[in-house]
């Protein structure tokens, strides 16, 4: 500063001032820069979209990775699930690193009694091929079988189906979807002429009444439960009706819970239909235009259908056997019919039943009667169990009676179509349906089937009457199991064990419950010598002399072949290409061209490209474009309580565990969270039988016995027991009945008559 009265600033002062300002700014910028570098980036460096490995919801996920390892998994907010996954999906990060992976082929060098010992792929596959060839030479093509899974990729199930039916010429191709989804498939087919749900998950967002029957989404499809609750919280006037013999967590969140006696709920559906018809709740214009009636054999009319219901299914007539009051039946029927949009959601409670087909068809029938169809929120939606039961098995026809895209082997025209598409000589495909799951393993025991390949499933634990079926597998001529662990109940019985790649150790496409195909990328190297199931099938095809037939050998080439096959059907998803799948969060078929956005509501004009303009709704599965409502008489389950077996057992999943627990019991959070499986019993039954909490029990049915510990809970209605099937220490399927639905051949897991005794501790 100068020495004058008035201050002034010289150049030096100005430079100092500017330097100070610059220094302060530099300090701020340096701090910012340091923060950009130093602030943590979260748990992962890269995020890649993929699909959850577990249930049929088929959630889109983001896989977070750092240094080549999966470090985090979160929901993909752009996928159909809007970022919501569940505790199993959240723990997928641990799945690739669980202990005990099978990493090398294993064979028994000294016959059945000898231990499984490591072998090379060449040794193992040579042995498999020679045993298959031996069986085919000695007893024909139908002496070999494939038993697959709703957890294989579509490319794998398609290839297996083609190899066995058009190459080996054996229709003995079945899989675990027979155990969970077969009744849904036959129910839809009998009603609409085509399998697969007509609606979408997004219908939940529009429904004013959600009719949840025989399903427990809180535990089994948590993101769907969350979506239902999102709807409820956003629109509290939405009515949630839950029909379940148990007061499940889903029932706790419902407005109305009806607890029928296990095995009787066709009475409920028929009585609801009776109320709808008697109280003038039928949507007459919809029914007149879009529906025809049958009595199961011949065409009838609405009057005949109503007379059938009036004769035996008034609420008062069914109330006692059903265990639900007539008032509640009427209340639910009216709510179902009069809501602005009703969506039904069901799964194994209706599917795993000796009347599974009838139950499935009747739920759809209620929607047709009331016109609750085709509008947003109005649809009958069968929730699927596994991540690729719909796309991989139902669509590809990888079941013993089926051919791709809704065709069946018993139909000569269908066989001819597939023979032409696959380029095999006419007459190649055996006209006789193969063996469905339960029969297939019985045949393995009695020698009708001499060699079988089991992939990606654990039937020794999951089949009903599993002690007998395990014995059949132990007796089998030759059992090959492709597995990720050597200690699954089925792997222990194998003659050859093949190490399989898991989840993101291979790439492929899965089709979840709303006809949506989604792509899973390969992000990890498989451990050891593990191979994808597709690679195993291609190798087997080559060794059995069908290399020319199985010319597509990479996931993308198989997919390209498969989508072109679909173009010859009403499934048509030729427009769902690999590049689109890699870019988009899946696409719903029909999707005939690469620019088609996919079909949210099937059979509905404006959404479904196969519907003719001007029709509004067109059920093109049948020649007359009408859906079918059939009179379905209630048939009492063979497993109703008796003096010898006074209780009824139902089985199911728990939220932390997936199927037989081979994967999820190796993840500490999920293992500890689920704890050991227990036999759940109502307080009144426990009191009557002097059962204390944790008491050792012996459960006995007509099929076998199993010991387990008691858990007393008022979630069970009196007379009903429950046990989950994930725990090898409680192999509950040893007592579960293996009666099957006569149409779908799906076993009745949900109803087994049992008796209970205190076991020796």
């Amino acid at each position, binding site marked *: 500063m100068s020495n004058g009265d008035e*201050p002034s600033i010289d150049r030096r002062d100005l430079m100092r001032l500017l330097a100070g300002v610059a220094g302060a700014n530099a300090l701020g910028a340096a701090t910012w820069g340091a*923060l950009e570098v130093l*602030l943590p980036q979260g748990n992962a460096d890269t995020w890649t979209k993929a699909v959850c490995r577990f249930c049929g919801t088929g959630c889109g996920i983001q896989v977070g990775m750092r240094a080549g390892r999966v470090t985090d998994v979160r929901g993909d907010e752009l996928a159909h699930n809007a970022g919501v*996954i569940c*505790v199993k999906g959240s723990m997928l990060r641990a799945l690739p690193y669980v202990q005990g992976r099978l990493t090398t082929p294993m064979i028994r060098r000294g016959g059945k009694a000898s231990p499984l010992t490591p072998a090379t792929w060449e040794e193992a596959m040579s042995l498999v091929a020679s045993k298959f060839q031996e069986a085919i030479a000695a007893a024909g093509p139908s002496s070999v079988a494939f038993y697959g899974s709703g957890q294989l990729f579509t490319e794998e199930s398609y290839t297996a189906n083609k190899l066995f039916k058009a190459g080996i010429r054996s229709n003995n191709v079945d899989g675990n979807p027979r155990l969970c989804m077969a009744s849904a498939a036959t129910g839809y087919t009998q009603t609409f002429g085509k399998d697969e749900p007509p609606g979408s998950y997004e219908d939940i967002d529009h429904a004013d009444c959600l009719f949840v029957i025989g399903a427990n989404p809180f535990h089994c499809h948590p993101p769907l439960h969350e979506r239902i609750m*999102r709807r409820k919280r956003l629109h509290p006037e939405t009515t949630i009706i839950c029909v379940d013999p148990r007061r499940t967590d889903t029932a706790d969140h419902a407005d109305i819970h009806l607890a029928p006696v296990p095995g009787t709920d066709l009475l409920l559906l028929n009585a609801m239909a009776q109320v709808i018809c008697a109280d003038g709740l039928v949507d007459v214009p919809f029914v007149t235009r879009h529906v025809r009636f049958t009595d199961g054999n011949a065409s009838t009319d609405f009057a005949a259908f109503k007379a059938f219901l009036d004769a035996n299914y008034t609420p008062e007539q069914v109330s006692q056997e059903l265990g639900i009051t007539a008032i509640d039946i009427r209340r639910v029927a009216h709510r179902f019919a009069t809501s602005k949009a009703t969506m039904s959601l069901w799964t194994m409670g209706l599917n795993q039943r000796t009347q599974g087909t009838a139950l499935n068809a009747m739920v759809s029938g209620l929607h047709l009667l009331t016109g609750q169809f085709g509008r947003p929120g109005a649809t009958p939606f069968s929730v699927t169990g596994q991540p690729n039961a719909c796309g991989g098995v139902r669509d590809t026809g990888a079941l013993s009676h089926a051919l791709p895209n809704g065709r069946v082997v018993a139909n000569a025209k269908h066989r001819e179509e597939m023979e032409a598409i696959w380029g095999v000589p006419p007459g190649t495909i055996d006209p006789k349906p193969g063996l469905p799951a339960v029969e297939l393993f019985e045949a393995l025991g009695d020698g009708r089937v001499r060699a079988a390949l089991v992939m990606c499933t654990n039937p020794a634990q999951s089949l009903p009457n599993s002690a007998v079926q395990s014995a059949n597998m132990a007796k089998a001529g030759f059992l090959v199991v492709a597995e990720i662990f050597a200690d699954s109940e089925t792997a222990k019985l194998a003659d050859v064990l093949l190490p399989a790649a898991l989840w993101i150790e291979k790439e492929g496409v899965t089709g979840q419950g709303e006809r949506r195909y989604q792509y899973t990328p390969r992000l990890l190297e498989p451990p050891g010598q593990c191979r994808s199931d597709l690679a195993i099938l291609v190798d087997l095809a080559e060794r059995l002399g069908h290399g020319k037939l199985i010319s597509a050998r990479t996931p993308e080439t198989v997919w390209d072949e498969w989508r072109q096959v679909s173009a010859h059907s009403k499934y048509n998803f030729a427009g769902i290409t690999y590049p689109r799948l890699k870019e988009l969060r899946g696409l719903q078929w029909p999707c005939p061209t690469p620019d088609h956005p996919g079909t949210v509501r099937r059979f509905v004009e404006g959404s479904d490209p196969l519907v003719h303009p001007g029709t509004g709704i067109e059920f093109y599965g049948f020649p007359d474009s009408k859906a079918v409502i059939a009179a379905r008489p209630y048939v009492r389950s063979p497993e109703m309580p008796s003096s010898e077996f006074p209780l009824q057992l139902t089985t199911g999943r728990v939220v932390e565990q997936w199927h037989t627990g081979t994967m999820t019991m190796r993840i500490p959070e999920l293992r500890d969270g689920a704890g050991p499986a227990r036999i759940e019993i109502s307080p009144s039954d426990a009191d009557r039988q002097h059962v204390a909490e944790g008491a050792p029990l012996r459960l006995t049915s007509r099929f076998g016995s199993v010991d387990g510990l008691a858990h007393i809970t008022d979630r069970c209605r009196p007379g009903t027991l429950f046990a989950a099937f994930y725990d090898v220490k409680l192999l509950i399927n040893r007592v579960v009945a293996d009666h099957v639905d006569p149409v779908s051949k799906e076993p009745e897991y949900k109803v087994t008559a049992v008796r209970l005794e205190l076991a020796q501790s």
Partner: protein
Amino acid sequence: MSWITLVRVIGTLTCLLTIVGGWLIARRNFARLSDRPAVSLGIATLSATAFWKLSAFACIAVLPAATMAVANYHTFVGVHEVEACSQCHVMRPMVNDLHDPNSDALAARHFKNGYIPTGQCYACHSDYGFSGDMAAKMEGFRHLARYTTRTYKEPLAARTRFDNHQCLKCHQGKTPFESVHVHGDVLTRLQSSNMSCLNCHGRAHPTRADRTPGSARYSALVQAPSFTEADHE
């Protein structure tokens, strides 16, 4: 006048006083002040030197400190108000969606159902306030730097994990939370934010796709939100 406006007025006044006082002081030649007569303040009479030294102290130390205090108070406490968050236009999609009764996002459902009566943004993002940790402050500084230098890109993406404590502080210990035994299965992971609550309960705000310029919802989402007096109570 709302309290937030009062804070702003006080902050502005102290800032102006600092500038004016600083200018006057800079024009003084303190070496010549001793010759000047005393300055009468009514209650006391000071020598010119003492007066200007006290003024200098006020302008160089007291008023800047007061300005900083008011500004920080405004920053930390002002962000309790949703309106304060919406001042940055990149936050408007969050605020507009929060107020949308048809939005199914977690924040909007909390708002619609009145789970959080006031200060909705801050209720779940309180680590930007006085109570947050240093990491949140550093992240906040980074956001400020990005925003003021316009070096951000829409749609914004969270860089770090959301701190689950923001959820747990209300939900943990309550029956709806405790009755879901899955929460117990992974409680350690939840408490350490190793697993996001959003995994099972969905996104909190509009999707990145909706927040991308040019999307169908974008223009509606970036409209200036309107607030009523009730929003400030």
